[in-house]
C-alpha cells in the first residue's frame, strides 16, 4: 500500500509501540496509587510530561494530557470562555479551523458568546492586522490554528501571538497538524494554550495534550479524580502518554533533515501534477505550507471517486478533511479560500510521511492523470465544457 494520508493519521512507530508495551502488562498500575508498581507509572508520566514540555519550550507543569486534539481544543475554548465570561463574551477565530474548534465555537454561541470567524485569503491566510482589527474590549480569546489540516497553510502565529499579548487577550492555537513537523516555541510565539494530538506524529490515537501557560485560570472540562494536578480527571492512559512522548521525541530528532526530504518530495509531486493534469489548481499557500501537504482541485471531477480509484491501486489519499467525511458538504476550508462548490468537491489531499519514496510518488503521477481523465469522460460538466470550447473554436 502507498499511504499518502499522514494528515489523517499515522502508524505507530515500532520504537513507540515498544516503549508503550510494558505499560499494558507488567507496569499496569494506576499512577494514583501508593505502592511501587504505581509510583513507577507516575514517574513515567512525569517523564513524558517533561519531554513534551521541552519540545514546546514549556515547563512540565504547563502540560496536561488529554484524550486527543479534540478534547484539548474543546477544553481550551470552553474552559477559557467559562473562566473569563465576566470579562467579556467575544472570541476570535478563523473560518478554516478544524471542526473541533469551529463546532465548539458554535456551541459557545448557543451559550451567549459571540464569535468572529475571520475570513482567509485565497491561500488560507489571515493577517495579524485582521486579528487586531477584530479585537474589542469584550474579546477574551483568540483561537487560530498553527497550520491547516486540509490545505497545509501555516498561519503567522508569532505575529498573532504578539498582537494578542499586546491587547491582553489569551491566545490558543490548534497545533495538531504543526506539532511533529514544525519547530514550535510557546514563548517565542507567545502562545497561551496549544493543542496537540499523538496520532498525527506516529504516536498512538486517543491521547493528546494541552499546553496551558502557568497562571491561566483554566477550569476543568472533565471533573472527577485528582489527576493532572486536579485539572483533568480520569485514570491516566499511561501507555498512550508514554507512547506520545516517545513519538514526539523521535519526531524532533533530525527534524530538519526529515523535513527537507519530505518537502522535496512534496514539491516534486506538486510539479508533477501540474505538468500532467490540465484544469487543476493547488490549494493552500505555495510556500507557507506544511512540508508534507499537497492539495489539488481538479475541475469537472468529484473527489471521492478519485479516492476510490486510487484505493483500487493501493493508494490511500483523502478528499478534504478525514474527520468531516460524515458530511456531504464540500470542505468549509476550500469554500473559505474562495473555491466554487464544484471545485471544492473535486479536491484531493495527499499528505506525505517519513517513509514515502520517490517511486511511490512516481506511481501516483502515472495513475492520477488517467483517473482524472477517466472521471472527466464520465462527467456531464466536462462534456459541457468541451462543447462550449469547441463551439468557441468554431465561431472563430
Amino acid at each position, binding site marked *: 500500500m502507498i499511504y499518502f494520508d499522514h494528515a489523517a493519521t499515522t502508524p505507530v512507530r515500532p520504537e513507540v509501540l515498544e516503549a508503550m508495551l510494558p505499560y499494558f502488562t507488567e507496569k499496569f498500575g494506576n499512577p494514583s496509587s501508593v505502592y511501587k508498581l504505581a509510583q513507577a507509572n507516575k514517574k513515567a508520566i512525569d517523564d513524558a510530561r517533561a519531554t513534551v514540555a521541552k519540545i514546546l519550550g514549556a515547563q512540565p507543569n504547563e502540560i496536561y494530557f488529554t484524550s486527543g486534539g479534540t478534547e484539548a481544543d474543546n477544553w481550551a475554548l470552553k474552559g477559557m470562555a467559562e473562566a473569563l465570561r465576566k470579562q467579556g463574551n467575544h472570541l476570535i477565530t478563523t473560518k478554516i479551523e478544524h471542526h473541533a474548534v469551529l463546532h465548539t465555537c458554535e456551541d459557545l454561541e448557543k451559550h451567549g458568546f459571540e464569535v468572529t470567524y475571520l475570513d482567509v485569503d485565497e491561500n488560507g491566510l489571515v493577517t495579524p492586522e485582521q486579528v487586531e482589527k477584530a479585537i474589542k474590549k469584550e474579546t477574551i480569546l483568540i483561537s487560530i490554528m498553527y497550520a491547516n489540516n486540509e490545505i497545509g497553510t501555516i498561519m503567522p502565529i508569532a505575529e498573532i501571538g504578539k498582537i494578542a499579548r499586546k491587547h491582553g487577550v489569551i491566545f490558543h492555537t490548534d497545533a495538531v497538524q504543526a506539532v511533529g513537523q514544525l519547530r514550535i516555541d510557546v514563548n517565542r510565539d507567545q502562545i497561551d494554550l496549544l493543542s496537540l494530538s499523538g496520532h498525527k506524529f506516529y504516536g498512538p490515537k486517543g491521547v493528546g495534550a494541552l499546553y496551558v501557560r502557568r497562571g491561566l485560570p483554566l477550569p476543568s472540562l472533565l471533573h472527577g479524580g485528582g489527576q493532572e494536578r486536579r485539572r483533568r480527571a480520569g485514570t491516566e492512559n499511561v501507555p498512550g502518554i508514554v507512547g506520545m512522548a516517545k513519538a514526539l521525541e523521535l519526531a524532533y530528532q533530525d527534524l530538519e533533515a526529515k523535513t527537507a526530504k519530505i518537502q522535496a518530495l512534496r514539491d516534486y509531486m506538486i510539479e508533477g501534477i501540474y505538468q500532467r493534469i490540465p484544469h487543476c489548481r493547488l490549494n493552500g499557500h505555495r510556500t507557507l505550507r506544511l512540508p508534507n501537504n499537497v492539495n489539488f482541485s481538479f475541475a469537472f471531477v468529484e473527489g471521492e471517486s478519485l479516492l476510490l480509484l486510487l484505493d483500487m491501486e493501493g493508494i490511500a489519499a483523502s478528499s478534504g478533511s478525514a474527520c468531516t467525511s460524515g458530511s*456531504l458538504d464540500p470542505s468549509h476550508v476550500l469554500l473559505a479560500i474562495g473555491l466554487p*462548490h464544484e471545485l471544492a468537491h473535486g479536491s484531493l489531499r495527499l499528505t506525505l510521511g517519513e517513509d514515502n519514496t520517490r517511486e511511490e510518488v512516481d506511481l501516483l503521477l502515472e495513475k492520477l492523470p488517467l483517473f482524472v481523465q477517466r472521471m472527466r469522460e464520465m462527467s456531464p460538466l466536462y*462534456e459541457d465544457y468541451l462543447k462550449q470550447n469547441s463551439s468557441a473554436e468554431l465561431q472563430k
Partner: protein
Amino acid sequence: MYSEKVINCFMNPQNVGEIPDADGVGTVGNPRCGDIMKIYLKIKDNIIEDAKFKTFGCGAAVATSTMLTQMIKGKTIDEAMKITNQDVAKALDGLPPIKMHCSLLAEEGLKAALWDYAQKNQLTIEGLEPPESSEDEEHAHSEAAE
C-alpha cells in the same frame, strides 16, 4: 463503506456516454451538492431500448447511474416508472445511509428524462410530475446523524 456491488458498478461502469438522437434527456442534481446526473433514453413502442448516462459525483452516484440504466433497459415505460430509489439501492446490496440521496438522484434522473420524452411527444405518463429545475434545487443533504 460500500458493498462489493457498488464498487463493481463504479469500477466497471456500464452505459456511460451520450445518445446523440435520444428521445428523452434528463439532468438532475447540482454541482454545489457534488453530484449531477444526466440520463439519455432511446424509447420505441413504449419500451426503453437504450439508456446511457453521464455523472459527476461520488462512487455511489456512478454506481447508481450504472445500476439504474441497466435496470430500465428493455423495460416498458410503466415498468420503469415503478422502479424506486430503494429498488436501485437494493440491487446494489445497499448504500450507506449518507449516500441514499444518490439513489434518489437516479430515480429523479430517470423521471426527468421520461418527462422530457413525454413533453416532446405530447404524452402523459401516469404518475409523472414535472421535474424541479435542477439549477435552483437545493436538495437537502441528509447528514450522517442517526
